[in-house]
């Protein structure tokens, strides 16, 4: 028998994966909760450190009234939306950036022989509940933006808000998994992954008007980060996007997210197949 579950359908595999993921995360949460005070402190530290980006923006706004033509509440909407999406994925999948280390020290082999999907095992590995801090922080700033901004709500604008956060999470999930797959090849290049994950979320915190047009085109048409928050949020704010696009494009964010996840899944499988143990 080569490979577990080869004959089973994709739904069975998905169910197995989710089950394995749940069991491993519950184990890590239990172990974290053994030292509750330590957990509370690390949750707090996570909340503080993820707030630094926003503190930097606040410091900028202590000197100016607008940045790239955008006011503080408008930037808070971009920041909160990207931060919440990113936080959800960082909590669920953030551990995949340890894959390179596992390839290097050979412990990935242990995961390969277990009867559960490797991706589920890698994602749940050392599940860090303290990363809730980032979701809380992102959601608070999103809440601040929604309270402060004077938006003329339409049903479509209301609809696109949850679509934005969920699609954003889907696109970030694809970036995380694609980056992890790259580590099958590059082994100790975890920082390349950080450039796209942390770099991506940092870029999306600022309005697209700030960046060079070619960069904006790149993250719209090549690596579709613009669909995480820029396109939907600018639709809500009623602001033009720097690259000329039809008005319905922001609503394709869920499709973009699904396509990105499918692509990342293929890259992951290719990476896993190409993997040769280091033999250590």
């Amino acid at each position, binding site marked *: 028998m080569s490979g577990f579950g080869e004959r089973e359908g994709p739904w069975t595999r998905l169910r197995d994966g989710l089950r394995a993921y749940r069991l491993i995360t519950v184990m890590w949460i239990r172990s974290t909760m053994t030292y509750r005070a*330590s957990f509370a*402190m*690390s949750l707090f*530290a996570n909340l*503080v*450190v993820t707030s*630094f980006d926003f*503190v*930097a923006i606040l*410091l*900028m706004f*202590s*000197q*100016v*009234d*607008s*940045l*790239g033509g955008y006011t503080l509440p408008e930037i808070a909407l971009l920041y909160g939306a990207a931060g919440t999406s990113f936080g959800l994925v960082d909590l669920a999948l953030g551990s995949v950036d340890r894959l390179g280390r596992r390839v290097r020290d050979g412990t990935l082999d242990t995961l390969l022989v277990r009867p559960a999907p490797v991706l589920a095992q890698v994602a749940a590995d050392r599940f860090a509940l303290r990363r809730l801090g980032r979701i809380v922080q992102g959601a608070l700033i999103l809440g601040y933006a929604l309270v402060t901004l004077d938006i003329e709500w339409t049903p479509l604008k209301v609809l696109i808000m949850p679509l934005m956060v969920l699609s954003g999470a889907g696109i970030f999930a694809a970036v995380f998994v694609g980056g992890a797959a790259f580590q099958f090849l*590059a*082994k*100790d*290049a*975890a*920082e*390349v992954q*950080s*450039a*796209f994950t942390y*770099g991506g979320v*940092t*870029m999306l915190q*600022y309005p697209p*008007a*700030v*960046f*060079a047009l070619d*960069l904006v085109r790149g993250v719209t048409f090549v690596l579709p980060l613009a669909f995480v928050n820029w396109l939907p949020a600018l639709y809500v704010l009623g602001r033009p996007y720097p690259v000329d696009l039809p008005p319905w494009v922001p609503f394709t964010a869920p499709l973009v997210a699904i396509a990105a996840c499918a692509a990342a899944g293929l890259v992951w499988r290719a990476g896993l197949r190409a993997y040769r143990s280091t033999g250590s």
Partner: protein
Amino acid sequence: MYVHTGRLYATVAAGGFRRYATYRTATAAGVFTNTVFGFILAYTYIALWDERPGLGGYDQADALTFVWISQGLLAVASVLGGGFEDELMDRIRTGDIAVDLYRPADLQLWWLAGDLGRAAFQLLGRGVVPMAVGALCFTLTLPADPFTWLAFLLAVLLGTVVSFAIRFVVALSAFWLMDGAGVAQIAFLAGVFFSGMLLPLAVFPGTLGEIARALPWSAMIQVPADVFLGKSTGTDLLGAYAFQAGWALALLLTGRLLQGAATRRVVVQGG
């Protein structure tokens, strides 16, 4: 005897350099990340300085130079942590530290030498390329005077010693707390906020700015960047060095006192 110990620490420093030089893919990956972040920050700084030209006494070229210097120095000054201090804390927790204390070398000088070797590699490995990319893609303020480059290198060296001294104190806290992770986390937060990597400290408003500039973390990025930009010349330059050296001495001394107290503690604990 004195020559011998000098040679010993030089060997340790060379070891620190070589050790990091072996991580080639990791270094390339780090250069890539620093460059990506450099671009993102550079565009936000352009937006900020478009709005307020001359903010904090920097023109736009100065501000952009600041971005690339800070990306180049992040790894050198180990602002984000993850250097020798993790290893030292591990040795304290496991008791391996007892072996280190038996060695005919000073604990603090040993780790300082290794860390300076690491910093020298990071300056070459992770400092030069982002700076060169930044200079190619943006208009930067590059000093024409070779003396300014030398003055900058000295400021980087002093900043690295301050960084080492802080992390040494943080690591020694493990003698008392067993798990130094909490203290390391706080030092890391302070480093990110007060070194100037988030935003030049000159942009911090009012009293917050004054406090930030007076704390030791400003010796790591803010002070070397100002030396590079020619903001500190003549007496100001000596003042900048005195500031860095003062913090370096005070923190090294603190580390030394803690080291003495900790050594006695090891004996009491029996390792």
